[in-house]
């Protein structure tokens, strides 16, 4: 996966950190101090569709040429998460109980084109 930098327009991962202190949640969320709410953004021209990274083989290269020459024949694909991990939280619930849980698939680690 590729991290977005500067004015890259291709499908990449944008980092976005939510600091719980900044949003006034540090009193009820004990750990961690924030949430990496990364997300995917950018273009997925057809010849990039369906491959996780660069062209991996001769077959892929030929397939890309076919796709690129028939670009008007189909729509673009989408830039989506391809790798995610859980968000572990230690927090107070409404009865001031302390609860620890791992929320699955909350943090995006990598993006790619469908």
């Amino acid at each position: 996966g590729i991290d977005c930098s500067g004015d890259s327009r291709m499908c990449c991962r944008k980092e976005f950190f939510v600091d719980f202190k900044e949003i006034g949640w540090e009193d009820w969320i004990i750990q961690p101090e924030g949430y990496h709410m990364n997300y995917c953004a950018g273009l997925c021209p057809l010849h990039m569709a369906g491959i996780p990274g660069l062209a991996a083989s001769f077959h892929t290269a030929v397939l890309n040429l076919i796709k690129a020459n028939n670009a008007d024949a189909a729509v673009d694909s989408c830039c989506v998460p391809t790798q995610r991990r859980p968000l572990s939280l230690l927090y107070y619930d409404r009865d001031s109980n302390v609860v620890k849980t791992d929320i699955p698939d909350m943090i995006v680690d990598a993006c790619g084109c469908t």
Partner: protein
Amino acid sequence: APKGVRCPACGLAALAPTTQRDVLITLAKESILSKLRLPDRPNITQPTSRGALLTALRRMRAHHMDAAVSPGMPHDSSNPHLRPGMGVQEYEILSFAESGSSTSHSIHLHFHFTGELAGSTEILQATLYLFWAVPGPGTHPVTVRLLKPDPMGLNMTVVSKTRLEVQRAGWATLDVGQAVQSLFNQGSQRLTVELEVAGDWGAPLLGSHSDSHWPFVAAQARARTPHRVQRR
């Protein structure tokens, strides 16, 4: 999309950076609250003292280690309930006691479990941790009753009764898994523990709420998965 260019995915104009930040923070809050099954962020009236929290986490770790190495005790891996669920959200809950009524030879402790968790999880394991202060030598019998409010919430019914022989000061544990599960099944949210000592033994427990020897219940729960009918 860079400023002025339409977003290729949704066709909307690019957002101003501050607007985009506000939108993302709102999304993050909604996402976390919905995954925790909370209607809104909780308002904490009585945060647990750091000492009590650290002691409880240490006690739980020690208890798990003892359970893992002692022969005959069901290891986590052997207990099908405790094997990590594939992708199912699991919870560890620490509920610290709230003082109830007491006399010279009995004391009541209340443990509250939030509605959201109670309605949507199944209890895998629950253990009551008590710290005894024993005045003097010899064995001190203590009767521990687990009480739950009846469905009308008017009277208390005894869920279980256990007689303990306390010989020395220190931590003791009691399995309360079934009592907490039956609470959750009934949709009730409060477990009451009554400790009764024979004769006039004085308060059978150490410490006030601020002390790190305060009683607590440690529970492991798993989100209920919607019942799936397998068709062959």
